[in-house]
């Protein structure tokens, strides 16, 4: 029984030879070798006739000598076909280019691109701008392009403009908020979102061969595209403002979720600050919340964020960004609610909106209060997450900040000759805190405020109105252990420094004497204040904390105490100075943290009987476990031993 066979005739792919599946040539189109009309290409036809049985693949009749039907194309036909082909191709391309022609006049706002004008010659260097002290602070920089030919000069001579490409829109907006209208090197910086245009190759529908082409190669969203007329009308600025507003809104929303849930954006700010002043973050947290032993992460965050908020607020005046004013310090209200009213009766509600720069004092007050609050609030705990949140930066410092032990005294020796901007980013923070006295005149004092503010460092006005009683509370009453392991640790470090500084004249000369003088006359004060002062100069700008600011300490009557003794028992404040000094000596952040932890654990064992609440102590091990790498340092072990001795002594005395 014959079986019906379904022959697959791919009529839709008529341009293919059914045997070899190759596309039919132009010459093959009219070539039908068999009377049955089965079309194959001439290649297959030749092959069947010479190598195979010479039968038609379809009907099995043998092929005649000549093709049954073949009308060779005339030259004109050929030309016609080719012309049509070309025409089609051209049309297709034309369509694409027509669609793109109008794009040639478009400028597209890049949400992650910051355009800055007014950069001085000193700053007009890619590597400098990328640094953590400058634009690197606000996020990951993908690319920096500097244009030295800008005509924008003003009276100060030539200046440059730069395009800074961030990895995220939020980072760029942060940078703009902070940098715009900042005064540095005698010039006002202007920052805005940058625009770009479509690459000419894209407009011609060609492939762009530039490896790192800055122009657009794909259609951008309509919202961000502006014609020149739009730009002149300032529409792109409206768009920028809208973005910034959205960002702030987001911050606010995140802030409303709770004091501990600072939005990612805020974290960016916080963390970028902490990058610049690596030590500052830790020192700050250590002295604010750490000084109250229950080193609560929430407290740390809130105080930290308050500082960043303060920064941004100060920027508000400068930028006249009214919108910013409407964003209150995020974590603050929550923190305040959790204050036990009996503990801090004198605390006032800090103003949420700072309208004027005359509020500076109040700002710092508020900040201080917040720190105070943070330590007073028992329920904020240091969570493992909170610690890890900063871990990238810690790692950053592990990688960058650690120098061999043999180099410990290096910063001091190199002090007078170093220019902070010549340092590697990694060392700058260390050095700058130490170098401040020498560097006073490197930058116009006038500009330092703005510039510091722009990059998140402000001078903190001195606190004057703190009663000794409340300080005592801070010191001993509110926290769980009744003493501050952070400070203890500092004392230990101070001791170590005292030993080491015997070898370094410059250090011995400046540090302790200054402090001694200051300490004698000061009232009690909070450690982290100075801390900030010390840290707030990543550029090594003017303010010398030792001369510009008071160092209130504990009211310590025993002036006759030995030097070390005085340091031990007197002030947390002094200790932070010691600490900063030690950090300069042992330029690793981790050493400090670890010591803090180690000391606290040491104290945990020692002070256990006296401690009423151990709840917060549980956070210490986690903190410690997050820093396992520090234990490796040999010098660290020495320090720990010293710290232990000192703290033991301190306990006995207490």
């Amino acid at each position, binding site marked *: 029984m014959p079986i019906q*066979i379904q022959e697959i005739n791919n009529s839709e792919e008529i341009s293919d030879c059914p045997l070899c599946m190759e596309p039919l040539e132009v010459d093959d189109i009219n070539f039908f070798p068999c009377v049955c009309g089965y079309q194959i290409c001439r290649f297959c036809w030749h092959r069947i006739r010479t*190598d195979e049985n010479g039968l038609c693949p379809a009907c099995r009749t043998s092929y005649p000598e000549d093709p049954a039907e073949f009308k060779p194309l005339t030259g004109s036909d050929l030309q016609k076909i080719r012309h049509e082909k070309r025409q089609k191709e051209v049309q297709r391309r034309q369509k694409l280019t027509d669609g793109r022609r109008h794009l040639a006049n478009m400028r597209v706002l890049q949400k992650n691109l910051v355009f800055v004008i007014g950069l001085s010659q000193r700053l007009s260097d890619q590597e400098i701008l990328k640094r953590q002290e400058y634009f690197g602070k606000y996020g990951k920089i993908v690319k920096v392009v500097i244009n030295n030919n800008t005509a924008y000069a003003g009276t100060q001579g030539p200046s440059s403009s730069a395009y800074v490409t961030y990895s995220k829109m939020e980072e760029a907006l942060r940078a703009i908020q902070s940098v715009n209208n900042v005064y540095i090197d005698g010039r006002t910086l202007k920052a805005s979102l940058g625009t770009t245009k479509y690459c000419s190759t894209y407009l011609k529908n060609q492939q762009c061969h530039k490896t790192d082409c800055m122009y657009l190669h794909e259609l951008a969203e309509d919202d961000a595209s502006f014609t020149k007329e739009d730009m002149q009308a300032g529409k792109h600025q409206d768009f920028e403002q809208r973005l910034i507003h959205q960002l702030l809104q987001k911050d606010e929303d995140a802030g409303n979720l709770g004091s501990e849930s600072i939005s990612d954006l805020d974290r960016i700010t916080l963390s970028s600050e902490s990058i610049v002043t690596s030590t500052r973050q830790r020192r700050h947290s250590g002295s604010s919340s750490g000084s109250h032993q229950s080193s609560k992460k929430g407290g740390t965050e809130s105080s930290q964020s308050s500082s960043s908020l303060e920064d941004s607020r100060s920027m508000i005046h400068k930028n006249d960004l009214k919108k910013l004013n409407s964003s209150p310090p995020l974590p603050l209200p929550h923190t305040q609610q959790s204050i036990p009213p009996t503990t801090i009766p004198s605390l006032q509600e800090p103003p949420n909106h700072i309208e004027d720069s005359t509020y500076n004092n109040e700002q710092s007050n508020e900040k201080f209060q917040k720190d105070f609050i943070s330590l007073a609030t028992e329920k904020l705990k240091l969570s493992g997450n909170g610690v890890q949140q900063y871990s990238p930066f810690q790692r950053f410092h592990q990688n960058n900040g650690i120098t061999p032990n043999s180099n410990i005294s290096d910063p001091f020796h190199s002090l007078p000759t170093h220019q902070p901007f010549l340092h590697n980013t990694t060392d700058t923070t260390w050095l700058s805190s130490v170098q401040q006295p020498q560097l006073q005149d490197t930058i116009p004092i006038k500009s330092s405020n703005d510039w510091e503010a722009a990059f998140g460092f402000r001078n903190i006005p001195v606190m004057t109105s703190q009663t000794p009683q409340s300080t005592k509370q801070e010191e001993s009453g509110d926290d769980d252990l009744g003493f501050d392991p952070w400070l203890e640790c500092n004392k230990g470090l101070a001791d170590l420094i005292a030993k080491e500084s015997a070898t370094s004249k410059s250090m011995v000369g400046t540090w302790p004497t200054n402090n001694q003088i200051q300490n004698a006359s000061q009232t009690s004060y909070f450690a982290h204040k100075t801390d900030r002062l010390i840290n707030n100069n990543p550029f090594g700008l003017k303010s010398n904390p030792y001369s510009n600011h008071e160092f209130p300490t504990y009211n310590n009557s025993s002036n006759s105490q030995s030097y070390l003794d005085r340091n031990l028992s007197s002030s947390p404040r002094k200790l932070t100075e010691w600490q900063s000094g030690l950090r300069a000596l042992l330029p690793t952040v981790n050493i400090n943290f670890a010591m803090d932890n180690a000391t606290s654990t040491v104290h945990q064992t020692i002070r256990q009987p006296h401690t009423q609440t151990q709840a917060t102590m549980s956070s210490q091990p986690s903190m410690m476990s997050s820093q396992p790498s520090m234990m490796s340092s040999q010098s660290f072990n020495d320090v720990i031993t010293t710290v232990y001795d000192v703290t033991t002594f301190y306990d006995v005395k207490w």
Partner: protein
Amino acid sequence: MQRSLRLKRELHMLAQNPSPGISCWQDENQINVIHAQIIGSDGTPYAGGIFSIEVSVPDRYPFEPPKARFMTPIYHPNIDSGGRICLDTLKMPPQGAWKPSLNIGSILTTIQLLMSEPNPDDPLMADISAEYKFDKPMFTQKAIEHTRQHAFGK
């Protein structure tokens, strides 16, 4: 060269427009071997069974027919216990009816057709053929049992 290009095209076409009840894929190691599976059509003794077929494509394909073989035992007058298929389109002329214009997909369709319409007049298995001719209920019962035994769940 012609073979590989054509095979590629054919497999592409099969993937684009698969015939119902037939699936096929190229062997991982051998470029000239194609594995296929045919599901027994409803209304036949082979209904529900999955029958594996191995198709090997000769070098001179398409001028030589591909060689198809049942890997799954099947109770069928035209297919022997070794899986060899008696099918005219699988043989070269003059005995067979292979034409270069046929292809793998058409061959598999033909095999599927042969399964539902056995050809007892050109038997390979004489006893099964006789059974099919003269005792169809017996054949059907045996075929169903055979199918259940070999072509299910493999």
